[in-house]
């Protein structure tokens, strides 16, 4: 035992340095494309086409002018995207937790088949089932509305799967029993006691769901028809034109603007993942 302690500091030191080097390398690798994207947003189109650069240039204002002059209303696109992504994330997170809780805590006859069913749903490739979905929406005349982009999120099989696995590992039934004894109804137990326990899981999945919804180009493209409802990614894709010169500078600026809110959301939610507070288990 003593031997272990004596060697520990030295090997710790070397280990730590190696670890730091690896992490810093990975961090740089991860940031690289972002950096390039942001740098390109400040360069002019000819500069961009002449090669890659790690240093920003001075054309931010010109790119911005080009962007706004082309009836690109970033504010409108931003709010549309925000509404869609915000609500769909909230729906997905809440109802998935609810369903997962139902799968873990209660012992009902169709529990296992239902779970297997959810897993199966996850496994169907998205491309093929898309057509049926669009056809259905068009028949309902539910085009040019945010609803078909938000409501389906209530049934998110992958998220239910994650919440279930998380609860299986982190939840002990004693808490629920304790709450029942205290006279709490099932729903209020869920909302008041269980949801806080699930915060790391919720934060994680919320980030993923928000990012996925925000960056989703195809589905809003098919379902929305009027300019005023277009999301940010759709607007950025409209910047491309092969008739005249493609203004790469403004395109990169548009892309950077699209990514910016994601950073904000991510930074906001990530402290729930960074925080070293482990919220599982019953206090003994």
């Amino acid at each position, binding site marked *: 035992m003593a031997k272990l302690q004596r060697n520990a500091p030295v090997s710790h030191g070397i280990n730590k340095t190696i*670890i730091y080097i690896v992490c810093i390398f990975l961090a740089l690798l991860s940031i690289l494309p972002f950096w390039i994207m942001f740098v390109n947003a400040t360069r002019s189109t000819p500069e961009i086409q002449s090669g890659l650069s790690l240093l920003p240039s001075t054309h931010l204002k010109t790119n911005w002018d080009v962007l706004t002059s082309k009836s690109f209303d970033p504010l409108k696109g931003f709010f549309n995207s925000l509404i869609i992504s915000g609500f769909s994330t909230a729906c997905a997170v809440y109802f998935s937790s609810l369903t997962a809780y139902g799968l873990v805590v209660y012992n009902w006859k169709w529990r296992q088949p239902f779970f297997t069913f959810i897993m199966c749903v996850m496994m169907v490739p998205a*491309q093929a089932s898309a057509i049926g979905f669009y056809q259905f929406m068009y028949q309902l005349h539910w085009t040019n509305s945010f609803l078909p982009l938000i409501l389906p999120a209530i049934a998110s099989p992958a998220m239910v799967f994650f919440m279930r696995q998380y609860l299986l*590992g982190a939840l002990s039934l004693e808490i629920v029993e304790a709450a029942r004894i205290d006279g709490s109804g099932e729903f209020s137990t869920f909302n008041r006691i269980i949801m806080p326990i699930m915060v790391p899981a919720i934060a994680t999945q919320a980030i993923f769901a928000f990012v996925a919804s925000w960056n989703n180009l195809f589905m809003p493209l098919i379902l929305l028809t009027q300019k005023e409802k277009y999301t940010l990614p759709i607007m950025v894709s409209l910047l491309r034109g092969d008739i005249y010169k493609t203004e790469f500078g403004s395109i990169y600026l548009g892309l950077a603007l699209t990514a910016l809110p994601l950073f904000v959301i991510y930074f906001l939610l990530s402290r729930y993942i960074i925080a070293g507070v482990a919220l*599982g288990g019953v206090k003994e």
Partner: protein
Amino acid sequence: MRRKGVSYAKYGYIFSLPFILVFLVFSLYPILYTAVIGFTDMKGLIPKPIHIMDNPFQNFKDLLFDNASFQQSLLNTGLLWIINFIPQIILALLLTAWFTNKRLNLKGTGAFKVLLYMPNIITASTIAVLFSTLFAYPMGPVNSLFHALGWSDSPINFLQDKMTARGIVGFIQFWMWYGNTMIVLVAGVLGINPALFEAASIDGANGFQTFFRVTLPSLRTIMLYTLITSMIGGLQMFDIPQLFITPAGGPDNATLTTSVFIYGQAFKGSYMYNKAAAASMIMFVIAAVLSALLFYLMRDRDASKLKKQMKKQKKAAKAAARGA
């Protein structure tokens, strides 16, 4: 015998109701539609009447045995998944071990966690453009770098060579998702009872031992999630292979994944929806089989042993009650 308290089973149904309703309305129809189409001869834009084929499984047979592209795509999907996933899970586990190791007490883990997840935030199309620029031939940055380092004497056309094309696509997928996997695992670790860690450190366990004996086993449920979603995600790999190398499919179909194949069948050429649907169903079956396998391998052996014991006991009790 007194009934053991109130049964809360009904809440299981109630809590799951919203999911079921929404699913029925928005997802069931499209999926059934797809499944049925796989058995028909539907193709082209807009049905002339669709018929179920004489041999309902004709499409499936054709795809699996006669269609070289589909077979190639299965191979590619598997290859790309291996290139992408093995490094990903190893690295993610490693990082999780480092970042949750209280002993190690790394500074700045918060910042690292944030930075390493970032690649997941950009859209695949942007990444495709950025990486194309990086690996441009003849004088893109990577080529220049290799040249400067003396690793190659003439520019390599990364996107035209089968092996490098696959390698890069696999790398991009890895790069996009390893942060995501790491975050999932870290979230899982945060759900482990801290008392376990305290007990381990009191017992004198070092970093390795804590990780392998305490963290990993407690992470089993989350690991299962990671393995299954990565597997399914890998089987459905689409964005990068479709966008990064044009024409989609890469040099000699080297980066043709099954989802790219399905998309191509449905939306290019002569719109063979029936083949696309059949291929989707095949992929579904593969995913189901592999998932069942994973579930089996990762089952909680103690819990299932317990279940078996309880079943035996019940049976014995019943037999006793009847016999006696």
